């Protein structure tokens, strides 16, 4: 059975979005800075230009994508991403955690599941020996961490202070033991890998 991995980008002051995040602006106002590492530098929601990741950023992304056998995302992330244009962009099974699984769209691009534990179970079965990637949003990742589902956690720290927005760790009220695995650095992010001790 493969492991469950989660990773998320935060600002140095702990925000995963700027203020007023929502459809068309998933990272909030001014939150684009968080994902410079994904697009190889500056980009904006109000402009179509997107670059490609390079260097350590590209290596990390390719390693993560290559290791994945299934993806779990929350309904909020799914909606904020505009359903990824109703096309599964990963080519591996994608499970969407939602309170309304009956709204499952037609076709087999995405599988709606009514709870996180069930989604983890189904994703593990679908992934086989490969890893299950819990992509977000924050509440799904923190729920997965708190419930002990996550084996490896990557904190990606973007060099910005956002000062407002959604915080990753507001809902984790219990302490968690983490073991440091490694750190890498690019001009746009610091990647810190942790093993979650159960």
């Amino acid at each position, binding site marked *: 059975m493969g492991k469950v991995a989660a990773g998320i980008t935060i600002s*140095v002051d*702990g925000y995963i979005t700027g203020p007023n995040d929502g459809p068309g602006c998933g990272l909030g106002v001014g939150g684009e800075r968080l994902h410079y590492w994904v697009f190889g530098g500056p980009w904006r929601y109000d402009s179509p230009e997107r670059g490609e990741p390079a260097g350590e950023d590209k290596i990390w992304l390719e390693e993560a994508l290559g290791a994945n056998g299934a993806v779990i995302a929350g309904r909020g992330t799914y909606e904020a991403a505009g359903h990824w244009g109703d096309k599964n962009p990963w080519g591996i099974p994608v499970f969407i955690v939602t309170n309304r699984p009956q709204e499952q769209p037609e076709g087999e691009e995405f599988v709606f599941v009514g709870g996180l534990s069930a989604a983890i179970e189904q994703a593990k079965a679908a992934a086989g020996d490969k890893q299950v990637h819990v992509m977000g949003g924050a509440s799904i990742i923190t729920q997965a961490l708190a419930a002990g589902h996550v084996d490896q956690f990557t904190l990606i720290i973007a*060099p910005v202070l956002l000062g407002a927005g959604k915080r990753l760790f507001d809902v984790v009220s219990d302490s968690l033991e983490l073991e440091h695995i490694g750190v890498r650095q690019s001009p746009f992010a610091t990647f810190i890998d942790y093993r979650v001790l159960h």
Partner: protein
Amino acid sequence: MAKLIYSVIASLDGYVEDQQGAFDWAAPDEAVHRFINDLERPVGTYLYGRRMYETMIYWETAHAVPDQPAVAEEFSGIWLRAEKVVYSRTLDAVSTARTRIERNFDPDSIRDLKASAERDIAVGGADLAGQALSSGLVDELQVFMVPALVGGGKRSLPEGIRFDLDLLETMPFDSGVVFSKYRLKP
């Protein structure tokens, strides 16, 4: 012209102390402490909030504690040689040398100090550092991220400020602590 530096040891979820006010989980081991000594050696003046000052008073006499590890003894020396300014409305007197009290946080006087000082200035205590950040006075941010989630308490960085940062340096330690140094873009 001196830099104003905010150096902070924080949990992964961004707290300097937990909900009980404890920060034992943040205590540096020898390797981190040695690294801190190297960072602090160039500092000429410390700006402290009252609570941070009261925590740091220990270092005034730490060299006299028997069996003190070498890194602690060395830090004590670094601290003794630096000037200290304590920001407090209630404190009447101080018990440490080279220390003066200021009643109010005055951005202009800190701007003057930065312009005239030859050695760097460090601000300690999350509240005071938050005021310095909000006033746009901080040039460099140094974060020691401790691999612990403490779930709540006192935040290491204030709400409501926004700065783009340049990552200058990252240093991982065996203990899992990760140090990052950032320059705040004006």
